[in-house]
């Protein structure tokens, strides 16, 4: 099996990001005298908060007191990949070349010595073999933990719970809507009491009238559901923009997917038809004289 490791700078910067968060937040934008200090990248959020720009020189250290800090030059500012687990916290990050990071943190952060990293990201030629690859690495390197990036973990568990919570809210909302719809249909059907009575007198059967009302209910339900989906599509951008502004992130919070559309239709349309049916039936089962009585 070929094991194309993608190591070096990328892995190191990912590993470094968390540990240098506090340090980077304390970086002072002082021009340092040294010639061409090592280059680093800083996150947009850190740049904005500390008024830093590309070309500025900063000092980074692993000690909160600033002891042992080293000079670096900001080579660029990047937009960090949004982390849904920490979207409420501004990503104040710096990315360093691996040798610079190891020199900065030294033995204090790595009991195994300077040649140690927190994790190694691996890009497989065949991503489908990630599970097998992880098992193989764990077998060959006892003590290491290898797992596919798609494997369920605590992070996905959080989102499963959030999804379940939103589903529960949706169920309660649908129940409330169903009652609302039923109340409305009862009133609308009652308004047609005399019309239904006349139709019955003309010879229309209960079944035929019921079919007509249910068909009308279905049309209303489809139009209503379509309106709701259209409203969701229109407001999707507004919601996303609000939350993206609120949390200063590029995360997408709300997305109307085809699956969501179909699920909405699957709930709304039968619900509308059922409400029409129940409301009509309560009227149609009455005696004819009761219907035409004024």
């Amino acid at each position: 099996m070929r094991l194309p490791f993608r190591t070096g700078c990328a892995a190191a910067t990912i590993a470094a990001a968390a540990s240098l968060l506090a340090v980077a937040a304390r970086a002072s934008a002082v021009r340092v005298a040294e010639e061409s200090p090592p280059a680093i990248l800083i996150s947009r959020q850190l740049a904005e908060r500390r008024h830093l720009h590309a070309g500025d020189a900063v000092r980074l250290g692993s000690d909160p007191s600033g002891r042992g800090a080293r000079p670096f030059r900001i080579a660029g500012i990047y937009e960090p990949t949004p982390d849904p687990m920490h979207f409420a916290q501004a990503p104040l990050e710096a990315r360093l070349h691996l040798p610079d990071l190891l020199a900065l943190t030294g033995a204090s952060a790595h009991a195994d010595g300077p040649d140690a990293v927190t994790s190694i990201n691996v890009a497989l030629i065949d991503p489908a073999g990630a599970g097998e690859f992880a098992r193989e690495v764990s077998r060959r390197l006892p003590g290491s933990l290898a797992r596919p990036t798609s494997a369920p973990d605590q992070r996905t568990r959080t989102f499963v719970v959030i999804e379940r919570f939103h589903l529960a809210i949706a169920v309660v909302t649908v129940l409330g809507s169903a009652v609302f719809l039923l109340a409305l249909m009862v009133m609308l059907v009652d308004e047609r009491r005399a019309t239904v009575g006349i139709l019955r007198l003309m010879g229309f059967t209960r079944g035929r009238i019921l079919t007509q009302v249910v068909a009308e209910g279905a049309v209303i339900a489809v139009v209503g559901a379509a309106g709701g989906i259209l409203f969701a599509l229109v407001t999707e951008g507004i919601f996303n923009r609000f939350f993206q502004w609120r949390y200063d992130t590029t995360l997408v919070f709300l997305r109307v997917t085809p699956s969501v559309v179909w699920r909405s239709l699957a709930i709304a349309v039968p619900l509308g038809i059922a409400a029409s049916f129940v409301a009509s039936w309560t009227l149609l089962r009455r005696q004819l004289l009761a219907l035409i009585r004024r």
Partner: protein
Amino acid sequence: MRAFRLAWISVVRQPARSGLGILGVAAVGALLFDMLLLSHGLVLSFRDLLNEGGFDARVLATDMVPFDGPRLAHASRLAAQIAALPEVAAVQQVRVVDAELAGASDPSGHEGLTHTAGMSGRDGATHDDRVQFVGNDMRVRPLWTVVEGRDVESAAAEPTVVVNRRLARALGASPGSRVALRGRCGDAADALPPVTFVVSGIADFPFDAATDNSAGGTIESAARLCGGEDVDRADMLLVRSRDEAGPGAAVAAIRRLRPDLHVVTNEQMVAQFSRVEFSYFREISSVLATVTLFFGFLLIAVLLTVSVNQHLGEIATLRAVGLSRGRVVSGILWESVLLVGTGGILAVPVGLVLSVWLDRILRGMPGIPSGLHFFVFEPRALGLYAVLLAVASIGAAAYPMRIVAALPIAGTLRREVVS
């Protein structure tokens, strides 16, 4: 009173419409009530959890979230300096170490220290072998409450620990059992030798999540788990202020003593978490509360409008026989208040039951302490709920009231006769 009676007759006369309207308001109201409980619930619950320990300030090396940032160096000397301040009553050092179970034995020691990785517990379930070891200074009130056996003894011949109920159940451990833990500190985790502890008792840890295995011992034991490295370092110092000084004065005194440290009161920490960590739930509850309130308003407005339109003839007749415009209009308002009020009252118990269900769902998130709740009842939420419903009922009645107020009596009666 006549207006109220008019509204009451109108509600009773159409039981299906009124019943469904009340049910709809109850469902929507329950959701609104729950969102109000959620908007502040985490903050209240978190505050209770922080205050439960009896400490009212925290000292950290940086402003990072506790346990994510660097540790405090020379912790015992720092704790002694802070404890000597006149505003401070007590200082507790806290160091949390990730560890894994390396073995366990029963109190008689007959089973020896068997390896337990991915252990299958005596309760029949398979358990995680990760353990969170909480080390603190045993001369100060510890961060746990012993429920069985004795507390940790600093001067014991063998190091002792207390374990939480989950770990005790999984290991079948009781006071006198032995448990071996291997620290997972830095990158040398596998090279660290296991440390054997005598279980002195079983305890409840306030910040335990439902799936956490926890053990508590001295701060020296925590350092020993890490192979004796980083001795005399603590993640955090917990401070109890003197009653006469208060937490604010204690924090100010500590800041004067060590301006390089990050010192916060419980209230400041709650405010910080409320602003950052818990903000999503506050935002989402605001959005959902607005949507449900609008939905409830729409429900009642439509019901009343359709009802008024269906009974324009009757209303015109009542006006014609002498009922004043004001009474008929206030009758509509009372009808709205009756529907919303009854539904709103029904919604409170429904909402409380619903909140238990929703709370259970959200507490399924990993790492949530068992003592933390998302939905917490407070009188303020009930007051706000009543105000919002009152506004919704008045708002919903506005349009039908306008229809009734502008109703031409003669024209309406004529149309009725002709139709």
